[in-house]
Protein backbone atom coordinates (compact mmCIF):
# COMPACT_ATOMS: atom_id res chain seq x y z
CA UNK A 1 0.00 0.00 0.00
CA UNK A 2 3.10 2.14 -0.32
CA UNK A 3 1.87 3.69 -3.57
CA UNK A 4 -1.52 4.55 -2.10
CA UNK A 5 0.16 6.29 0.80
CA UNK A 6 2.37 8.23 -1.63
CA UNK A 7 -0.66 9.21 -3.67
CA UNK A 8 -2.66 10.41 -0.67
CA UNK A 9 0.24 12.32 0.88
CA UNK A 10 0.97 13.84 -2.53
CA UNK A 11 -2.62 14.97 -2.97
CA UNK A 12 -2.61 16.54 0.48
CA UNK A 13 0.67 18.33 -0.32
CA UNK A 14 -0.99 19.46 -3.55
CA UNK A 15 -3.66 21.13 -1.40
CA UNK A 16 -0.99 23.38 0.10
CA UNK A 17 0.33 24.28 -3.34
CA UNK A 18 -3.18 24.97 -4.58
CA UNK A 19 -3.64 27.29 -1.63
CA UNK A 20 -0.39 29.09 -2.56
CA UNK A 21 -1.65 29.29 -6.11
CA UNK A 22 -5.32 30.26 -5.71
CA UNK A 23 -4.67 33.96 -5.20
CA UNK A 24 -2.17 34.00 -8.02
CA UNK A 25 -4.61 32.21 -10.29
CA UNK A 26 -7.30 34.79 -9.58
CA UNK A 27 -5.02 37.74 -10.33
CA UNK A 28 -3.41 36.10 -13.33
CA UNK A 29 -6.75 35.05 -14.76
CA UNK A 30 -8.41 38.43 -14.38
CA UNK A 31 -5.63 40.82 -15.39
CA UNK A 32 -2.85 38.60 -16.85
CA UNK A 33 -0.58 40.01 -14.17
CA UNK A 34 2.50 37.92 -13.47
CA UNK A 35 3.09 38.72 -9.84
CA UNK A 36 6.66 37.64 -9.15
CA UNK A 37 6.31 38.90 -5.57
CA UNK A 38 3.48 36.47 -4.76
CA UNK A 39 5.75 34.04 -2.90
CA UNK A 40 7.33 36.83 -0.87
CA UNK A 41 3.90 38.22 -0.03
CA UNK A 42 2.95 34.78 1.36
CA UNK A 43 6.07 34.88 3.54
CA UNK A 44 5.23 38.47 4.53
CA UNK A 45 1.75 37.37 5.63
CA UNK A 46 3.27 34.47 7.56
CA UNK A 47 5.40 36.95 9.52
CA UNK A 48 2.33 39.11 10.08
CA UNK A 49 0.48 36.14 11.59
CA UNK A 50 3.56 35.16 13.60
CA UNK A 51 3.77 38.68 15.02
CA UNK A 52 0.14 38.46 16.10
CA UNK A 53 0.84 35.16 17.82
CA UNK A 54 4.08 36.06 19.58
CA UNK A 55 3.50 39.72 20.33
CA UNK A 56 -0.20 39.75 21.17
CA UNK A 57 -0.44 36.15 22.35
CA UNK A 58 -3.32 35.37 19.98
CA UNK A 59 -4.10 31.91 18.64
CA UNK A 60 -2.86 31.47 15.04
CA UNK A 61 -6.43 31.36 13.72
CA UNK A 62 -7.43 34.63 15.36
CA UNK A 63 -4.15 36.20 14.25
CA UNK A 64 -4.83 35.13 10.66
CA UNK A 65 -8.39 36.49 10.85
CA UNK A 66 -6.99 39.85 11.93
CA UNK A 67 -4.24 39.72 9.31
CA UNK A 68 -6.72 39.12 6.47
CA UNK A 69 -8.25 42.62 6.31
CA UNK A 70 -4.78 44.11 6.73
CA UNK A 71 -3.53 42.10 3.76
CA UNK A 72 -6.66 42.99 1.78
CA UNK A 73 -5.90 46.67 2.31
CA UNK A 74 -2.27 46.20 1.35
CA UNK A 75 -3.22 44.31 -1.80
CA UNK A 76 -5.77 46.92 -2.75
CA UNK A 77 -3.24 49.69 -2.20
CA UNK A 78 -0.51 47.86 -4.12
CA UNK A 79 -2.79 47.40 -7.10
CA UNK A 80 -4.30 50.89 -7.05
CA UNK A 81 -1.09 52.81 -6.44
CA UNK A 82 1.49 50.75 -8.33
CA UNK A 83 0.40 47.81 -10.45
CA UNK A 84 -2.51 49.54 -12.22
CA UNK A 85 -0.05 52.08 -13.58
CA UNK A 86 2.07 49.48 -15.34
CA UNK A 87 -0.56 47.02 -16.59
CA UNK A 88 -0.87 46.96 -20.34
CA UNK A 89 -0.25 45.00 -23.47
CA UNK A 90 3.45 44.69 -22.68
CA UNK A 91 4.08 42.10 -19.94
CA UNK A 92 7.53 43.45 -19.14
CA UNK A 93 6.67 46.48 -16.91
CA UNK A 94 4.49 44.57 -14.40
CA UNK A 95 7.01 41.73 -14.41
CA UNK A 96 9.82 44.12 -13.53
CA UNK A 97 7.84 45.99 -10.90
CA UNK A 98 6.85 42.80 -9.10
CA UNK A 99 10.42 41.52 -9.38
CA UNK A 100 11.55 44.72 -7.68
CA UNK A 101 8.84 44.28 -5.06
CA UNK A 102 9.96 40.69 -4.48
CA UNK A 103 13.53 41.75 -3.74
CA UNK A 104 12.37 44.68 -1.60
CA UNK A 105 9.95 42.57 0.50
CA UNK A 106 12.50 39.79 0.93
CA UNK A 107 15.18 42.13 2.20
CA UNK A 108 12.76 44.19 4.25
CA UNK A 109 11.75 40.99 6.09
CA UNK A 110 15.40 40.06 6.48
CA UNK A 111 16.06 43.42 8.12
CA UNK A 112 13.00 43.19 10.38
CA UNK A 113 13.05 39.51 11.39
CA UNK A 114 16.64 38.31 10.63
CA UNK A 115 17.45 35.19 8.62
CA UNK A 116 16.54 32.79 11.47
CA UNK A 117 13.91 30.27 10.51
CA UNK A 118 10.65 30.60 12.43
CA UNK A 119 7.44 28.69 12.85
CA UNK A 120 3.90 29.58 13.85
CA UNK A 121 3.14 27.47 16.94
CA UNK A 122 0.06 25.34 16.33
CA UNK A 123 -0.06 23.49 19.66
CA UNK A 124 -1.51 19.96 19.69
CA UNK A 125 -2.30 20.06 15.97
CA UNK A 126 1.37 19.92 15.03
CA UNK A 127 1.95 16.18 15.37
CA UNK A 128 -1.66 14.96 15.28
CA UNK A 129 -2.59 12.29 12.78
CA UNK A 130 -5.68 10.39 11.75
CA UNK A 131 -5.83 6.65 11.01
CA UNK A 132 -8.03 6.08 7.96
CA UNK A 133 -7.52 2.33 7.79
CA UNK A 134 -5.45 2.02 4.64
CA UNK A 135 -3.41 5.15 5.23
CA UNK A 136 -2.54 7.45 8.09
CA UNK A 137 -2.75 11.14 7.36
CA UNK A 138 -1.64 14.18 9.34
CA UNK A 139 -4.45 16.38 10.64
CA UNK A 140 -2.64 19.53 9.49
CA UNK A 141 -2.23 18.40 5.85
CA UNK A 142 -5.87 17.31 5.86
CA UNK A 143 -6.99 20.72 7.13
CA UNK A 144 -4.79 22.39 4.50
CA UNK A 145 -6.43 20.37 1.76
CA UNK A 146 -9.92 21.09 3.10
CA UNK A 147 -9.08 24.80 3.33
CA UNK A 148 -7.83 24.79 -0.25
CA UNK A 149 -11.10 23.26 -1.46
CA UNK A 150 -13.16 25.68 0.64
CA UNK A 151 -11.14 28.65 -0.60
CA UNK A 152 -11.57 27.60 -4.21
CA UNK A 153 -15.28 26.95 -3.73
CA UNK A 154 -15.67 30.38 -2.15
CA UNK A 155 -13.70 32.04 -4.95
CA UNK A 156 -15.69 30.18 -7.59
CA UNK A 157 -18.93 31.15 -5.89
CA UNK A 158 -17.81 34.74 -5.94
CA UNK A 159 -16.64 34.43 -9.51
CA UNK A 160 -19.78 32.88 -10.98
CA UNK A 161 -22.66 33.93 -8.72
CA UNK A 162 -22.11 37.56 -7.74
CA UNK A 163 -22.15 40.91 -9.51
CA UNK A 164 -18.52 41.40 -8.56
CA UNK A 165 -17.68 38.03 -10.09
CA UNK A 166 -19.49 39.01 -13.28
CA UNK A 167 -17.34 42.14 -13.38
CA UNK A 168 -14.24 39.96 -12.84
CA UNK A 169 -15.16 37.65 -15.72
CA UNK A 170 -16.09 40.50 -18.03
CA UNK A 171 -12.83 42.32 -17.34
CA UNK A 172 -10.91 39.08 -17.80
CA UNK A 173 -12.49 38.47 -21.20
CA UNK A 174 -12.20 42.01 -22.53
CA UNK A 175 -11.29 44.92 -20.28
CA UNK A 176 -12.14 47.58 -22.87
CA UNK A 177 -15.66 46.31 -23.56
CA UNK A 178 -16.23 45.78 -19.84
CA UNK A 179 -15.29 49.44 -19.42
CA UNK A 180 -17.99 50.43 -21.93
CA UNK A 181 -20.55 48.57 -19.80
CA UNK A 182 -19.81 50.76 -16.81
CA UNK A 183 -17.24 48.56 -15.12
CA UNK A 184 -14.12 50.33 -14.04
CA UNK A 185 -11.33 47.79 -14.66
CA UNK A 186 -8.87 49.49 -12.31
CA UNK A 187 -11.31 49.30 -9.40
CA UNK A 188 -12.07 45.67 -10.23
CA UNK A 189 -8.35 44.88 -10.35
CA UNK A 190 -7.75 46.51 -6.96
CA UNK A 191 -10.51 44.44 -5.34
CA UNK A 192 -9.23 41.26 -7.02
CA UNK A 193 -5.70 41.78 -5.68
CA UNK A 194 -7.15 42.52 -2.25
CA UNK A 195 -9.08 39.21 -2.32
CA UNK A 196 -5.99 37.41 -3.56
CA UNK A 197 -4.12 38.74 -0.52
CA UNK A 198 -6.82 37.33 1.79
CA UNK A 199 -6.21 33.89 0.24
CA UNK A 200 -2.47 34.53 0.57
CA UNK A 201 -2.97 35.04 4.33
CA UNK A 202 -4.74 31.68 4.59
CA UNK A 203 -1.89 30.05 2.64
CA UNK A 204 0.62 31.80 4.90
CA UNK A 205 -1.10 30.43 8.01
CA UNK A 206 -0.62 26.83 6.86
CA UNK A 207 2.85 27.51 5.45
CA UNK A 208 3.92 28.83 8.83
CA UNK A 209 2.25 26.14 10.95
CA UNK A 210 3.44 23.17 8.85
CA UNK A 211 7.12 23.96 8.49
CA UNK A 212 9.85 26.43 9.30
CA UNK A 213 10.09 29.52 7.16
CA UNK A 214 12.55 32.38 6.69
CA UNK A 215 12.56 35.50 4.50
CA UNK A 216 14.30 33.76 1.57
CA UNK A 217 11.80 30.97 0.81
CA UNK A 218 9.31 33.06 -1.19
CA UNK A 219 10.62 32.49 -4.73
CA UNK A 220 10.52 28.68 -4.42
CA UNK A 221 6.87 28.87 -3.27
CA UNK A 222 6.18 31.21 -6.17
CA UNK A 223 7.48 28.64 -8.66
CA UNK A 224 5.26 25.85 -7.27
CA UNK A 225 2.28 28.20 -7.30
CA UNK A 226 2.92 29.30 -10.85
CA UNK A 227 3.37 25.75 -12.04
CA UNK A 228 0.02 24.86 -10.49
CA UNK A 229 -1.68 27.84 -12.17
CA UNK A 230 -0.16 27.16 -15.58
CA UNK A 231 -0.83 23.41 -15.47
CA UNK A 232 -4.43 24.12 -14.53
CA UNK A 233 -4.95 26.62 -17.33
CA UNK A 234 -5.58 30.35 -17.36
CA UNK A 235 -8.57 31.43 -15.30
CA UNK A 236 -9.64 28.00 -14.03
CA UNK A 237 -9.54 27.73 -10.23
CA UNK A 238 -10.38 24.01 -10.13
CA UNK A 239 -7.65 23.61 -12.74
CA UNK A 240 -5.29 25.29 -10.30
CA UNK A 241 -6.25 22.71 -7.66
CA UNK A 242 -5.60 19.94 -10.18
CA UNK A 243 -2.26 21.56 -11.01
CA UNK A 244 -1.33 21.74 -7.33
CA UNK A 245 -2.21 18.07 -6.88
CA UNK A 246 -0.16 17.05 -9.92
CA UNK A 247 2.88 18.87 -8.54
CA UNK A 248 2.27 17.49 -5.04
CA UNK A 249 1.90 13.88 -6.20
CA UNK A 250 4.91 14.15 -8.51
CA UNK A 251 7.01 15.54 -5.65
CA UNK A 252 5.94 12.86 -3.19
CA UNK A 253 6.49 10.11 -5.77
CA UNK A 254 9.93 11.52 -6.60
CA UNK A 255 10.82 11.70 -2.93
CA UNK A 256 9.69 8.09 -2.45
CA UNK A 257 12.30 7.00 -5.02
CA UNK A 258 15.09 9.29 -3.83
CA UNK A 259 14.67 12.14 -1.32
CA UNK A 260 16.88 14.38 -3.46
CA UNK A 261 14.50 14.08 -6.40
CA UNK A 262 11.44 15.57 -4.68
CA UNK A 263 11.58 19.10 -6.09
CA UNK A 264 13.01 17.93 -9.40
CA UNK A 265 10.11 15.51 -9.98
CA UNK A 266 7.60 18.33 -9.48
CA UNK A 267 9.34 20.56 -12.04
CA UNK A 268 9.59 17.72 -14.53
CA UNK A 269 5.87 17.01 -14.21
CA UNK A 270 5.30 20.68 -15.06
CA UNK A 271 7.58 20.51 -18.09
CA UNK A 272 5.83 17.38 -19.36
CA UNK A 273 2.39 18.97 -19.08
CA UNK A 274 3.68 22.08 -20.86
CA UNK A 275 5.10 19.97 -23.68
CA UNK A 276 1.78 18.19 -24.18
CA UNK A 277 -0.55 21.10 -23.44
CA UNK A 278 1.16 24.50 -23.72
CA UNK A 279 -2.01 26.27 -22.53
CA UNK A 280 -2.57 24.04 -19.53
CA UNK A 281 -5.19 21.38 -18.89
CA UNK A 282 -8.39 23.39 -18.40
CA UNK A 283 -7.98 26.91 -19.79
CA UNK A 284 -11.11 29.01 -19.28
CA UNK A 285 -9.94 32.26 -20.79
CA UNK A 286 -7.76 32.97 -23.81
CA UNK A 287 -4.65 35.08 -23.47
Amino acid sequence: MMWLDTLVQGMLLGGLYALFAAGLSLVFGIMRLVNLAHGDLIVFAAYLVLTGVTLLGLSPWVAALIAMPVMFALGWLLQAAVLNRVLGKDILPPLLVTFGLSVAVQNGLLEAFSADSRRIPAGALEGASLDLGLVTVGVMPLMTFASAILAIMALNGLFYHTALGRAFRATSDDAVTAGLMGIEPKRVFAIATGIAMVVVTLAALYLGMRANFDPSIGPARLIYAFEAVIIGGLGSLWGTLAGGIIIGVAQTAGAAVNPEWQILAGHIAFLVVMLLKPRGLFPRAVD
Partner: protein
Amino acid sequence: MYRLTTRTRAGTATEIAVLVLVLAGLALPAVTPRGVIQDLFFILTMLTLAQIWNLLAGYGGLVSVGQQAFVGIGAYAMFAGVILLGWNPVAAILLGGLAALALAVPTAFFAFRLQGAYFAIGTWVIAEVTRLLIAQWKALGGGTGTSLPREATSNIMGTDAIRALFGVREAAARDILAYWLALALVVVVTGCIYWLLRSRLGLALAAVRDNVEAAQAVGVDVGRLKWAVFLIAAAATGLTGALIFVQTARISPEAAFAVTDWTAYVIFIVVIGGIGTIEGPIVGVLVFFALRSALADYGSWYLMTLGLAAIAVMLFAPKGLWGLISARTGLHLFPVRRRLAGPKIEGGN
Protein backbone atom coordinates in the same frame (compact mmCIF):
# COMPACT_ATOMS: atom_id res chain seq x y z
CA MET B 1 24.33 60.00 -54.27
CA TYR B 2 21.94 59.41 -51.39
CA ARG B 3 22.53 56.53 -49.05
CA LEU B 4 21.13 55.06 -45.87
CA THR B 5 23.45 55.30 -42.92
CA THR B 6 23.44 54.84 -39.17
CA ARG B 7 26.60 56.89 -38.79
CA THR B 8 26.38 60.13 -36.79
CA ARG B 9 29.00 62.45 -35.36
CA ALA B 10 28.10 61.36 -31.81
CA GLY B 11 28.48 57.75 -32.91
CA THR B 12 31.94 58.30 -34.31
CA ALA B 13 32.99 60.25 -31.23
CA THR B 14 31.77 57.36 -29.05
CA GLU B 15 33.79 54.85 -31.08
CA ILE B 16 36.95 56.89 -30.55
CA ALA B 17 36.19 57.36 -26.86
CA VAL B 18 35.57 53.64 -26.41
CA LEU B 19 38.89 52.85 -28.13
CA VAL B 20 40.74 55.22 -25.79
CA LEU B 21 38.92 53.82 -22.74
CA VAL B 22 39.73 50.24 -23.69
CA LEU B 23 43.43 51.04 -24.18
CA ALA B 24 43.46 52.86 -20.84
CA GLY B 25 41.63 49.92 -19.29
CA LEU B 26 44.26 47.50 -20.54
CA ALA B 27 47.05 49.54 -18.94
CA LEU B 28 45.10 50.17 -15.71
CA PRO B 29 46.48 47.23 -13.66
CA ALA B 30 49.90 48.92 -13.72
CA VAL B 31 48.69 51.77 -11.54
CA THR B 32 45.67 50.56 -9.53
CA PRO B 33 45.49 48.31 -6.46
CA ARG B 34 43.97 44.84 -6.59
CA GLY B 35 40.65 45.91 -5.02
CA VAL B 36 39.92 48.28 -7.90
CA ILE B 37 40.67 45.56 -10.45
CA GLN B 38 38.24 43.23 -8.66
CA ASP B 39 35.55 45.92 -8.63
CA LEU B 40 36.09 46.57 -12.31
CA PHE B 41 35.88 42.84 -13.02
CA PHE B 42 32.51 42.79 -11.27
CA ILE B 43 31.28 45.84 -13.21
CA LEU B 44 32.42 44.49 -16.56
CA THR B 45 30.91 41.02 -16.12
CA MET B 46 27.60 42.44 -14.88
CA LEU B 47 27.62 44.83 -17.85
CA THR B 48 28.14 41.89 -20.21
CA LEU B 49 25.20 40.00 -18.71
CA ALA B 50 23.09 43.16 -18.85
CA GLN B 51 23.88 43.77 -22.52
CA ILE B 52 22.94 40.18 -23.32
CA TRP B 53 19.67 40.32 -21.40
CA ASN B 54 18.91 43.64 -23.06
CA LEU B 55 19.40 41.99 -26.46
CA LEU B 56 17.01 39.20 -25.44
CA ALA B 57 14.26 41.23 -23.80
CA GLY B 58 14.75 44.75 -25.13
CA TYR B 59 15.24 43.80 -28.77
CA GLY B 60 14.19 40.17 -29.10
CA GLY B 61 11.06 40.40 -26.94
CA LEU B 62 12.21 37.26 -25.09
CA VAL B 63 11.67 38.07 -21.42
CA SER B 64 13.72 35.31 -19.84
CA VAL B 65 13.89 34.95 -16.06
CA GLY B 66 16.12 31.89 -16.46
CA GLN B 67 19.45 33.28 -17.66
CA GLN B 68 21.06 31.89 -14.49
CA ALA B 69 20.73 28.48 -16.17
CA PHE B 70 23.37 29.53 -18.71
CA VAL B 71 25.62 31.26 -16.18
CA GLY B 72 25.52 28.12 -14.06
CA ILE B 73 25.98 25.56 -16.80
CA GLY B 74 28.83 27.63 -18.28
CA ALA B 75 30.55 27.81 -14.91
CA TYR B 76 30.08 24.10 -14.23
CA ALA B 77 31.30 23.11 -17.70
CA MET B 78 34.44 25.17 -17.06
CA PHE B 79 34.94 23.38 -13.73
CA ALA B 80 34.35 20.02 -15.42
CA GLY B 81 36.97 20.89 -18.06
CA VAL B 82 39.51 21.76 -15.38
CA ILE B 83 38.81 19.02 -12.83
CA LEU B 84 37.74 16.10 -15.01
CA LEU B 85 39.65 16.78 -18.24
CA GLY B 86 42.65 18.61 -16.81
CA TRP B 87 42.20 21.61 -19.09
CA ASN B 88 43.66 25.01 -18.39
CA PRO B 89 40.91 27.21 -16.81
CA VAL B 90 41.17 29.88 -19.51
CA ALA B 91 40.71 27.30 -22.27
CA ALA B 92 37.88 25.71 -20.29
CA ILE B 93 35.93 29.01 -20.47
CA LEU B 94 35.20 28.15 -24.10
CA LEU B 95 33.74 24.87 -22.90
CA GLY B 96 31.36 26.97 -20.78
CA GLY B 97 30.10 28.78 -23.87
CA LEU B 98 29.59 25.49 -25.72
CA ALA B 99 27.74 23.87 -22.82
CA ALA B 100 25.39 26.86 -22.56
CA LEU B 101 24.75 26.66 -26.29
CA ALA B 102 23.98 22.95 -25.96
CA LEU B 103 21.54 23.62 -23.11
CA ALA B 104 19.92 26.45 -25.05
CA VAL B 105 18.73 24.15 -27.86
CA PRO B 106 16.34 21.99 -25.79
CA THR B 107 15.42 25.04 -23.70
CA ALA B 108 14.36 26.94 -26.82
CA PHE B 109 12.43 23.94 -28.15
CA PHE B 110 10.47 23.90 -24.94
CA ALA B 111 10.20 27.59 -24.07
CA PHE B 112 9.28 28.83 -27.55
CA ARG B 113 6.04 26.86 -27.29
CA LEU B 114 5.07 29.21 -24.46
CA GLN B 115 3.90 32.79 -24.76
CA GLY B 116 4.60 35.91 -22.71
CA ALA B 117 4.36 35.24 -19.01
CA TYR B 118 4.45 31.47 -19.54
CA PHE B 119 7.78 31.89 -21.33
CA ALA B 120 9.23 33.81 -18.37
CA ILE B 121 8.13 31.18 -15.84
CA GLY B 122 9.11 28.31 -18.17
CA THR B 123 12.69 29.55 -18.47
CA TRP B 124 12.87 29.93 -14.71
CA VAL B 125 11.69 26.35 -14.16
CA ILE B 126 14.28 25.07 -16.64
CA ALA B 127 16.98 26.93 -14.72
CA GLU B 128 15.78 25.28 -11.50
CA VAL B 129 15.76 21.84 -13.14
CA THR B 130 19.31 22.39 -14.41
CA ARG B 131 20.42 23.46 -10.93
CA LEU B 132 18.86 20.42 -9.29
CA LEU B 133 20.40 18.07 -11.87
CA ILE B 134 23.85 19.64 -11.51
CA ALA B 135 23.55 19.32 -7.72
CA GLN B 136 23.43 15.53 -8.29
CA TRP B 137 26.84 15.59 -10.04
CA LYS B 138 29.00 14.19 -7.25
CA ALA B 139 32.30 14.52 -9.17
CA LEU B 140 31.85 18.30 -9.02
CA GLY B 141 30.92 18.46 -5.36
CA GLY B 142 27.18 17.75 -5.61
CA GLY B 143 25.00 20.11 -3.61
CA THR B 144 27.84 21.62 -1.57
CA GLY B 145 30.09 22.59 -4.48
CA THR B 146 33.84 22.53 -4.93
CA SER B 147 36.92 24.66 -5.59
CA LEU B 148 39.36 24.78 -8.48
CA PRO B 149 42.41 22.68 -7.53
CA ARG B 150 45.50 24.66 -6.59
CA GLU B 151 47.64 23.20 -9.34
CA ALA B 152 45.08 24.43 -11.89
CA THR B 153 44.80 27.96 -10.52
CA SER B 154 48.56 28.33 -10.03
CA ASN B 155 49.53 27.83 -13.67
CA ILE B 156 46.79 29.52 -15.67
CA MET B 157 48.25 30.48 -19.02
CA GLY B 158 49.63 34.00 -19.03
CA THR B 159 49.78 34.59 -15.29
CA ASP B 160 53.57 34.15 -15.20
CA ALA B 161 53.99 36.86 -17.80
CA ILE B 162 51.65 39.15 -15.85
CA ARG B 163 53.57 38.53 -12.63
CA ALA B 164 56.81 39.46 -14.35
CA LEU B 165 55.25 42.49 -16.04
CA PHE B 166 53.61 44.09 -13.00
CA GLY B 167 55.64 42.46 -10.21
CA VAL B 168 52.57 41.15 -8.39
CA ARG B 169 51.67 37.99 -6.49
CA GLU B 170 50.07 35.01 -8.15
CA ALA B 171 46.52 35.70 -6.89
CA ALA B 172 46.70 39.31 -8.06
CA ALA B 173 48.01 38.18 -11.45
CA ARG B 174 44.99 35.90 -11.77
CA ASP B 175 42.68 38.82 -11.03
CA ILE B 176 44.40 40.93 -13.68
CA LEU B 177 44.06 38.17 -16.26
CA ALA B 178 40.37 37.71 -15.41
CA TYR B 179 39.89 41.47 -15.65
CA TRP B 180 41.48 41.62 -19.09
CA LEU B 181 39.34 38.74 -20.28
CA ALA B 182 36.25 40.48 -18.89
CA LEU B 183 37.24 43.67 -20.70
CA ALA B 184 37.70 41.73 -23.95
CA LEU B 185 34.39 39.94 -23.46
CA VAL B 186 32.37 43.08 -22.78
CA VAL B 187 33.90 44.84 -25.80
CA VAL B 188 33.26 41.85 -28.08
CA VAL B 189 29.70 41.28 -26.81
CA THR B 190 28.72 44.96 -26.93
CA GLY B 191 30.45 45.36 -30.28
CA CYS B 192 28.65 42.35 -31.73
CA ILE B 193 25.27 43.57 -30.45
CA TYR B 194 25.96 47.05 -31.89
CA TRP B 195 26.95 45.51 -35.21
CA LEU B 196 23.95 43.19 -35.16
CA LEU B 197 21.53 46.06 -34.57
CA ARG B 198 22.98 48.02 -37.47
CA SER B 199 22.80 45.05 -39.82
CA ARG B 200 19.77 43.67 -41.69
CA LEU B 201 19.17 41.33 -38.78
CA GLY B 202 18.89 44.32 -36.44
CA LEU B 203 16.28 45.90 -38.68
CA ALA B 204 14.32 42.66 -38.60
CA LEU B 205 14.64 42.53 -34.81
CA ALA B 206 13.32 46.06 -34.42
CA ALA B 207 10.43 45.19 -36.75
CA VAL B 208 9.55 42.10 -34.68
CA ARG B 209 9.78 44.07 -31.44
CA ASP B 210 7.42 46.76 -32.71
CA ASN B 211 4.86 44.51 -34.42
CA VAL B 212 5.22 40.79 -34.97
CA GLU B 213 2.44 40.47 -37.57
CA ALA B 214 3.67 43.40 -39.63
CA ALA B 215 7.21 42.04 -39.55
CA GLN B 216 6.01 38.66 -40.78
CA ALA B 217 4.02 40.35 -43.51
CA VAL B 218 7.16 41.94 -44.95
CA GLY B 219 8.99 38.63 -44.91
CA VAL B 220 10.79 38.43 -41.57
CA ASP B 221 11.17 34.84 -40.37
CA VAL B 222 10.27 35.54 -36.74
CA GLY B 223 10.86 32.01 -35.49
CA ARG B 224 14.37 31.78 -36.89
CA LEU B 225 15.25 35.23 -35.62
CA LYS B 226 14.20 34.36 -32.06
CA TRP B 227 16.15 31.12 -32.19
CA ALA B 228 19.25 32.99 -33.35
CA VAL B 229 18.99 35.63 -30.63
CA PHE B 230 18.31 33.06 -27.92
CA LEU B 231 21.25 30.82 -28.88
CA ILE B 232 23.71 33.70 -29.24
CA ALA B 233 22.60 35.10 -25.88
CA ALA B 234 22.92 31.70 -24.20
CA ALA B 235 26.44 31.08 -25.49
CA ALA B 236 27.63 34.55 -24.47
CA THR B 237 26.01 34.16 -21.04
CA GLY B 238 27.77 30.80 -20.64
CA LEU B 239 31.15 32.35 -21.45
CA THR B 240 30.52 35.13 -18.93
CA GLY B 241 29.46 32.64 -16.27
CA ALA B 242 32.58 30.54 -16.81
CA LEU B 243 34.78 33.63 -16.58
CA ILE B 244 33.11 34.82 -13.37
CA PHE B 245 33.83 31.48 -11.72
CA VAL B 246 37.42 31.35 -12.98
CA GLN B 247 37.91 34.47 -10.89
CA THR B 248 36.10 33.22 -7.78
CA ALA B 249 37.66 29.72 -8.20
CA ARG B 250 34.86 28.28 -6.02
CA ILE B 251 31.49 26.99 -7.15
CA SER B 252 28.24 25.69 -5.69
CA PRO B 253 24.84 25.13 -7.32
CA GLU B 254 23.33 27.92 -5.19
CA ALA B 255 25.93 30.47 -6.29
CA ALA B 256 26.16 29.43 -9.93
CA PHE B 257 22.40 29.27 -10.48
CA ALA B 258 21.40 32.24 -8.28
CA VAL B 259 18.31 33.90 -9.74
CA THR B 260 19.02 37.07 -7.73
CA ASP B 261 22.62 37.53 -8.82
CA TRP B 262 22.43 36.55 -12.46
CA THR B 263 18.92 37.56 -13.42
CA ALA B 264 17.31 39.94 -10.90
CA TYR B 265 20.29 42.32 -10.65
CA VAL B 266 20.86 42.11 -14.38
CA ILE B 267 17.25 43.03 -15.03
CA PHE B 268 17.48 45.93 -12.56
CA ILE B 269 20.59 47.21 -14.31
CA VAL B 270 18.89 47.15 -17.69
CA VAL B 271 15.66 48.68 -16.41
CA ILE B 272 17.23 51.45 -14.35
CA GLY B 273 19.59 52.34 -17.18
CA GLY B 274 17.04 52.05 -19.95
CA ILE B 275 15.81 48.99 -21.81
CA GLY B 276 16.20 48.73 -25.56
CA THR B 277 19.35 50.83 -25.85
CA ILE B 278 23.04 49.95 -25.70
CA GLU B 279 23.71 53.00 -23.50
CA GLY B 280 21.09 51.89 -20.93
CA PRO B 281 22.96 48.93 -19.42
CA ILE B 282 26.13 51.04 -19.20
CA VAL B 283 24.35 53.75 -17.22
CA GLY B 284 22.54 51.07 -15.23
CA VAL B 285 25.66 49.20 -14.17
CA LEU B 286 27.27 52.44 -12.98
CA VAL B 287 24.20 53.29 -10.88
CA PHE B 288 24.09 49.71 -9.60
CA PHE B 289 27.73 49.82 -8.55
CA ALA B 290 27.41 53.27 -6.99
CA LEU B 291 24.42 52.10 -4.93
CA ARG B 292 26.29 48.96 -3.93
CA SER B 293 29.34 50.92 -2.80
CA ALA B 294 27.32 53.58 -0.99
CA LEU B 295 25.14 51.11 0.89
CA ALA B 296 27.69 48.32 1.29
CA ASP B 297 27.68 48.65 5.08
CA TYR B 298 23.91 48.43 5.41
CA GLY B 299 23.44 44.82 4.31
CA SER B 300 19.93 44.13 3.12
CA TRP B 301 18.97 47.83 2.96
CA TYR B 302 21.00 47.98 -0.23
CA LEU B 303 18.92 45.32 -1.98
CA MET B 304 15.71 46.86 -0.69
CA THR B 305 16.75 50.21 -2.16
CA LEU B 306 17.63 48.53 -5.45
CA GLY B 307 14.23 46.84 -5.67
CA LEU B 308 12.39 50.05 -4.83
CA ALA B 309 14.55 52.01 -7.29
CA ALA B 310 13.57 49.60 -10.06
CA ILE B 311 9.88 50.07 -9.19
CA ALA B 312 10.27 53.87 -9.15
CA VAL B 313 12.03 53.89 -12.51
CA MET B 314 9.35 51.67 -14.04
CA LEU B 315 6.62 54.00 -12.73
CA PHE B 316 8.11 57.38 -13.48
CA ALA B 317 10.68 56.81 -16.24
CA PRO B 318 9.79 53.59 -18.08
CA LYS B 319 12.61 54.17 -20.55
CA GLY B 320 15.16 54.38 -17.75
CA LEU B 321 17.75 57.01 -16.91
CA TRP B 322 19.28 56.94 -20.36
CA GLY B 323 15.82 57.39 -21.84
CA LEU B 324 15.47 60.60 -19.79
CA ILE B 325 18.87 61.88 -20.92
CA SER B 326 18.28 60.91 -24.50
CA ALA B 327 14.85 62.55 -24.63
CA ARG B 328 16.25 65.80 -23.18
CA THR B 329 19.33 66.03 -25.38
CA GLY B 330 18.53 63.91 -28.42
CA LEU B 331 21.86 62.21 -27.86
CA HIS B 332 22.50 58.67 -29.16
CA LEU B 333 26.00 57.42 -28.37
CA PHE B 334 25.41 54.15 -30.20
CA PRO B 335 23.13 55.20 -33.06
CA VAL B 336 21.28 52.32 -34.70
CA ARG B 337 18.63 54.39 -36.45
CA ARG B 338 18.89 54.58 -40.24
CA ARG B 339 18.95 58.07 -41.75
CA LEU B 340 19.17 59.35 -45.29
CA ALA B 341 22.52 61.03 -45.93
CA GLY B 342 23.60 63.06 -48.94
CA PRO B 343 23.34 66.56 -50.39
CA LYS B 344 20.58 68.77 -49.03
CA ILE B 345 17.44 68.48 -51.09
CA GLU B 346 16.69 71.80 -52.86
CA GLY B 347 13.27 73.25 -53.61
CA GLY B 348 9.98 72.31 -52.06
CA ASN B 349 8.91 74.60 -49.25
